[in-house]
């Protein structure tokens, strides 16, 4: 379960409105590499991690991503709050205004609404963690692109901080990826060494894997012949 704390993980206090910047920053709220995508990606992948190391890390990072989503929301809100209609038009956010006024709505910086197809789950920890590592790197790159486009210290301060979090998360995911890769490759080596002993293979691979079913099929084929 989740409980709200009435504070941000990192402070946001933007003194100068900037609608144009809000339009760029919204990408990290509802774009393909957004904090929203990150949170949903890890929350959905955590159930099928093969052990508690994976379940714990994905749960804790997904939870932190929600706090980051809230930081981005606070920034977009403060950048837009006092904007005039003329400023909104000039920044190209009139289409957003027509539909949402100044309300938050997860889109990318071109106004394309968030879609869950930005994320995937495969049930394969190595495939899922590869996606997670790539997602953290891409989110870091997008933060750097936005940092390049502003000189407001009130905006740079949280963006530099959030960028650094992507680096930490990437490294944690990489560590877990390497751990699983070593673990599973070892298993695969054992399997290779026992290629002539078909009956041991189910034990080697564990229950309920697609490979299990394949091996059962092969055994049945051998029996039939």
């Amino acid at each position, binding site marked *: 379960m989740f*409980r*709200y*704390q*009435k*504070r*941000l*993980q*990192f*402070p*946001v*206090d933007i003194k100068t409105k900037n609608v144009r910047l809000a339009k760029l920053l919204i990408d990290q709220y509802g774009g393909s590499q957004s904090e929203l995508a990150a949170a949903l990606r890890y929350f959905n992948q955590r159930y099928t991690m093969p052990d508690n*190391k994976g379940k*714990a*890390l994905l749960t*804790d*990072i997904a939870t*932190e991503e929600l706090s980051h989503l*809230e930081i981005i*929301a*606070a920034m977009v*809100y*403060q950048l837009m709050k006092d904007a005039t209609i003329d400023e909104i038009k000039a920044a190209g956010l009139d289409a957003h205004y027509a539909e949402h006024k100044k309300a938050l709505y997860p889109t990318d910086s071109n106004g394309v609404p968030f879609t869950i197809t930005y994320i995937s789950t495969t049930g394969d920890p190595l495939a899922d963690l590869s996606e997670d590592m790539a997602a953290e790197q891409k989110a870091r790159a997008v933060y*750097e692109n936005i*940092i390049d486009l502003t000189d407001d*210290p009130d905006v*740079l*301060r949280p963006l*530099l*901080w*959030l*960028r*650094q*979090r992507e*680096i*930490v*998360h990437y*490294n*944690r995911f990489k*560590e*877990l990826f390497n*751990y699983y890769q070593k673990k599973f490759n070892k298993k695969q080596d054992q399997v290779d060494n026992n290629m002539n002993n078909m009956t041991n293979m189910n034990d080697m691979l564990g229950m309920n894997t697609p490979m299990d079913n394949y091996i059962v099929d092969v055994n049945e084929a051998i029996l039939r012949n």
Partner: protein
Amino acid sequence: MYNYNYLDNYNNLRSNINNTSYVPSYDNYNMDRSADDRVTVGGMELFAPKEAYEKGNLFKDLYTPYKNYKPYKLTPKDERQKLFLELSEYDFAAHELNLYLDLHPEDKKALNLFNDYRRRANELLEKYESQYGPLTVSSDALVKSPFLWEEQTFPFDKGGVSNV
């Protein structure tokens, strides 16, 4: 480098850690330190909570600045903001060790440091809530009428506690 009062707390905390002999001892974090004075977890050197929070990274070896940008200083304007910032710092340091411990549950040194930071963050949360009102809906500060959970400014609005 940093002259905030709560560095004393950090040093006291460090002394406590030193008593359990997990971490090499030094009395003043601001002084130049020799290589074996470093606080390390899993062979990685750690920043002190304040510096870690400003940088967004507890692990010195993982810290990677962007271009020539330096992290901005967080400057509390009053006692309330100072206490809030200190809470955020220890909470963040504990969270960083939480992520590390997820993958290294057997690391006793990291676990002890995590528990020291976690305890300190809990103490600061209780102190903050008793003086300035609830940040959590389980706070004892909520016995007062009217219902302070609703009354107090949200952190994304001007004057919210996160506007340091």
